């Protein structure tokens, strides 16, 4: 392996190690039994085949899907921070369609559900795309704000139009049997994982071997040169990258409903949209790497549940690990570009 390829791996490993070290320190400081907590974390994620397949990998699927979408957007330099909202809106769409397709043949039903989910995700990001292209609004803020609207929408759906027939719980009825993605026998792992693997492979080819992937990279690293010398329609490239990003985040929502929860309820996502940012960044936007980091963060989330159950540590603390990972990757990248000096030189040298 060349040095160039080794460095990102080392960075990633280092970032993770640092994240855990800080977590352990924090836990100890807060009075928890740190070794016990970390042990529970491990067991929750890898303690048994069942843990691995039904907890870790199941949680990895939405992370990978959203992460792949983020890879497309980030590669072009567009920052989609609305994965959470796109996921939720897609879940609503998936649930609604899933309730309608009772009589359909299974493959058609599933396709309809997932298709609706992807469409919903893309539509949800379409408004920010419009705002960006027409009004120059930072997509970061617009996608962020829509996350909250999506949450409100889910809340409305499960207490109103989509609420279950008995009107007791704020949740929907389960979707039709034909709309459910089959699982691997005995586990909770569903065929969605194969789909994400396929998409990752496709995207990898797309990024490295096609003119489309090249244009994405050109726009993301030098949009002005891309526009003037590359004659690349930067606006269109950014817009479509964001739309695809929304569609893949939507797919995650559809997969979650159709393969795991089988219905809709509040707090469907434990922050998948944000964790996926760490997933994508840690893998340096490499689609195959995202498979690995997605699995890892899935493990983290699964382990966090175990940690809360067995050691009483609130599961939400893993967000801290994620944040630390992001920061360390950022620092390393910045260092690669600017060096370690904390203060910039007095002036930029004139060429």
């Amino acid at each position, binding site marked *: 392996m060349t040095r160039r390829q080794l460095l990102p791996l080392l960075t990633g490993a280092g970032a993770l190690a640092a994240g855990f070290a800080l977590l352990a320190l924090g836990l100890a400081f807060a009075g928890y039994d740190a070794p016990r907590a970390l042990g529970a974390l491990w067991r929750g994620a890898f303690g048994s085949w069942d843990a691995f397949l039904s907890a870790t990998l199941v949680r990895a699927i939405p992370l990978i899907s959203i992460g792949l979408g983020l890879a497309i957007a980030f590669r072009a330099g567009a920052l989609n921070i609305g994965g959470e909202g796109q996921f939720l809106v897609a879940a609503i769409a998936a649930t609604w369609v899933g309730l309608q397709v009772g009589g359909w043949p299974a493959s058609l039903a599933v396709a309809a559900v997932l298709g609706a989910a992807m469409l919903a995700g893309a539509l949800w990001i379409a408004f920010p795309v419009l705002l960006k292209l027409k009004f120059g609004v930072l997509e970061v803020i617009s996608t962020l704000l829509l996350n909250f609207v999506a949450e409100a929408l889910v809340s409305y759906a499960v207490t109103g139009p989509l609420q279950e027939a008995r009107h007791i719980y704020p949740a929907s009825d389960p979707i039709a049997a034909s709309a459910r993605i089959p699982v691997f026998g005995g586990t909770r792992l569903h065929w969605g994982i194969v789909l994400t693997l396929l998409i990752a492979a496709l995207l990898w080819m797309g990024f490295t071997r096609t003119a489309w992937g090249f244009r994405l990279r050109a726009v993301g690293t030098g949009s002005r040169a891309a526009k003037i010398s590359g004659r690349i329609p930067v606006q269109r490239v950014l817009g479509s990258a964001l739309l695809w990003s929304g569609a893949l985040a939507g797919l995650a929502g559809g997969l979650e409903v159709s393969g795991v929860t089988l219905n809709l309820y509040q707090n469907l996502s434990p922050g998948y949209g944000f964790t996926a940012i760490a997933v994508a960044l840690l893998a340096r936007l490499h689609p195959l790497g995202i498979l690995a980091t997605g699995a890892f963060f899935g493990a983290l989330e699964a382990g966090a549940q175990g940690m809360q159950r067995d050691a009483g540590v609130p599961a939400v603390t893993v967000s801290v690990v*994620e944040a630390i990972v992001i920061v360390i990757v*950022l620092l390393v990248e910045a260092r690669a570009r600017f060096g370690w000096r*904390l203060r910039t030189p007095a002036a930029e040298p004139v060429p």
Partner: protein
Amino acid sequence: MNGALLVTGFLAAAVRISTPLLLAATGELINERAGVINLGIEGGMLAGALAAAIAAVAGGPWLGVLAALLTGTLVAALFSLVAIGARANQIITGTAVTLGSVGLTGGIYRSAFGVSGPALSIPTFEAVRLPVLHAIPVIGSALFEQPALTYLGWLLIPLAGWFLFRSWWGLALRACGESPVAARASGVPVERVRILATLAGGALAGIAGATLVLAQVGTFAERMTAGRGFIAIAIVVLGRWRPLGVFLAALLFGAAGALQFALQAMGLAAPYQLFLALPYLVALLALAGATGKARAPAALGE
């Protein structure tokens, strides 16, 4: 229902709801004018809210404000170290800071107070009646019978205006936001100015969180800021990066928030989720409408 009472109630609610937004937005205005966009403001607000809750229980509301100020500054310091000191991407850094803050505050709150413990009873701020002014009919008791922190927010606006446009250091700060290269050539210590501006923004974000807990809601809940920090960023845009504009935009959002109560009082039924979503929708529309003529600081985010 009595029309005048309705107006008064609406106005009072609007002002009350706008205060945390105003404080956070004023802080963000300062650092954005220096060229730094800090998405970590949401995290700073949330951390400040928790700090305020804990400190207030221990030693009264003003201690809560102090704790919030320090906490918000600390969060901003972490952000500055990475985004300004190491020159990492400001947007992603801010997102990470907020993410970490949500996790940390959630973790601390749960371990300290349990998963669904009873709401904390926190000593809050009483409304302060301004003499004479509060007797003005209709608007008097709405505008001039507010907690002290509201008046603080109002005071900061002309102060910020004077600082930005009439003092040399305010000029230097604006220069950092327009062209750091040119500012540096004029002898302005750009990094130092940006860091100080960001810390100031963080301090105000913390106080905004304190206001939320101690002068509005009265308790702490996980993720209680619910995106107010991001709305503050939208307010800065809508206010065209000017103090007066920020003040008016914050009021607008306060009004949007207060609309819920007004409409309910008038007997209009609508799903409460609509009101939940309203501020964010308003923010989105405002962003679209505002950037027509707004001039962001040229070097924002660089």
